[in-house]
């Protein structure tokens, strides 16, 4: 399946693709691994606009055509 991907902030330096191919049943965590983005550098992931908390990344299954946004952590400023 094909998942649309956007990243924010400095994560653009880790991931420059706008989509990723994943096997059926892949989770948000699987997608992050495939994209090469370390989990501890992610502030929040949303899928089709819905927030996916850290604890639920492994249990949230993606489906073909999902739009996943990987957001950098916030640091104030």
């Amino acid at each position, binding site marked *: 399946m094909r998942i649309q991907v956007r990243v924010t902030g400095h994560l653009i330096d880790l991931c420059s693709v706008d989509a990723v191919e994943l096997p059926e049943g892949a989770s948000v965590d699987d997608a992050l691994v495939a994209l090469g983005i370390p989990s501890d550098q992610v*502030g929040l992931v949303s899928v089709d606009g819905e*927030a996916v908390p850290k604890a639920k990344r492994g249990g949230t299954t993606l489906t073909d055509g999902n739009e996943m946004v990987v957001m950098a952590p*916030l640091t104030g400023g």
Partner: protein
Amino acid sequence: MSWQGKILRVNLTSGEITPEPLNTEWANDYIGERGLGTKYLWESMDPKADAMSPDNVLIFATGPLTGTGASTSGRYAVITKGPLTGAIACSNSGGKFGAELKYAGFDLLLIEGRSETPVYLLIEGDEISLASADKIWGKTVWETDEWIKKQHHNPMLKIATIGVAGERGVRYAAVVNDLHRAAGRSGVGTVMGSKNLKAIAVRGTGGVRVKDPKRFMEVTDEMKNLLAKETGGLTKYGTNAMMDTMQEFGGLPTNNFQQVQFDGYDKVDAKAMLKTDETGHTNLLANKACFGCTIACGRIAHIRKDHFTIQNRKEYWHASGGLEYETAFAFGPVVGVDDIDACTFAGYLMNEHGMDPISFGVTLAAAMELYEMGVITTEDTDGVALNFGNAEALTIMAEKTGKQEGFGEILGMGSRLMCEKYGHPELSMTVKGQEFAGYDSRALQGMGLGYATGNRGACHLKHDTFDVDMDDQTGEGKAEPCKTSQDWTAAVDSSGLCMFTMAAWGAPEFAAQLDADSEGEWTAERLIQSGERIWNLERMFNLAAGLTRADDTLPERLLKDPAPSGTAKGRVNELDRMLPEYYDLRGWNEAGEPTEDTLGRLGLS
């Protein structure tokens, strides 16, 4: 230790300048900078005094690590009673001024009274004097900096000054040092102006001594390496890297917080600053670091010469301070403007005239909403159409406010007083009279609690709940990280180091550096308890000034109008749920007052 052991008391009414020993007992209990300045303020004035009266006291305080070889050691803070809020004001700045003050032999400046005529304070070697500022009163920050250096034939002077905004009573005037760095928030420059004090110019040629030089070098080297691993994004993109995250998250205040996402965000974000346009122009020219900093998050930018803001004004064709996240938010989404050159120019004007960009932008946003509602018209606004998105209106009003001309006098009142004047206080996006930063608290619940309980009013820099706010958009479990991070941030703000290091360093890392630097045993536990003591002393100042629990609140828009989009769509801020839990954790009663037990535990009885 790196304290010089000396403060300078300056009475502007009498003209007396008196060096005094540093109260080391207070330094031990309140660390330095923000904490130590708060203690001196508490002991030096009646909190009920009018912020603009001679009875207010203005303090410039360094931290124990200011001027040392630790990374980001250029920090100092300005502490006073704030004219926007009537509460304690503490505004922190970088640049080189703070370290220079230490090298001139002073840990802290305490300024009392009011001069009959405009003056500036000169500290140059052994010469310490108040000099006439007649020739620079009415001049900009940049003109003042240049004039003082020429007057004393000393380009090495480091200067903290107000612009015209501070002289003429803009309630959110800043103290700008080293041309582009500012103690920007809470109107500390307004207080300086009310005292007829135009500037402080310092040249220091001494150094600082640390307690254990070998251990200090080892520890600070290790800390710099740690910092380098964690802050590369901040170096490359600056704080404005947060713009697209806030957009995707749905916490980007837009059009005076009516929306939480802004279509034009990608025209004013960090990537837009790096983009080269069809003419070969790139907004960002270089990074800039403050004294001792190994992050260099500061931005130096320039504006297209054919842009409407400067095409006939060559004096602005030079490079100058560029957009950071808060300035980009305040001149961009919250006023609906997506013109990066106009935003950059507005930033120049803030530095030039000495104003807080956050308070200006959020006040202008409220004026734009009043205009679009028909409450004010072009008859009020000097003929300028104050529609959201009008980039020309942004820059015209920034200049009018800086110079206090026309409708700029109204904008200079700040959002709360302006909205009350026009009969719509509900449009003021403030806490205790200070404007919000660029985070909508319907999406960031802990941020809302931090805003509501902020001792200097709405502020994003006095706590750190970003991680928990991103991961969970309810109010559950937010009181504890808000309280804990407020205490910790108070300690960091008092150290002489920059809070951006918090991305890499926790309490043990700060304590290790401070312990190698200063006398006494500095542990993580002691630092955190000192931070809690500082927070509570600030609270005591505010209670004594007349603030109450009723001031710990948010505008109805954030409490009742659901977020219209984004990942928090449909949510309002859950302050009612968080605030009682927060008071309980703090050891405060239902009125928000520290209990006797709490005061006793912290040594504040």
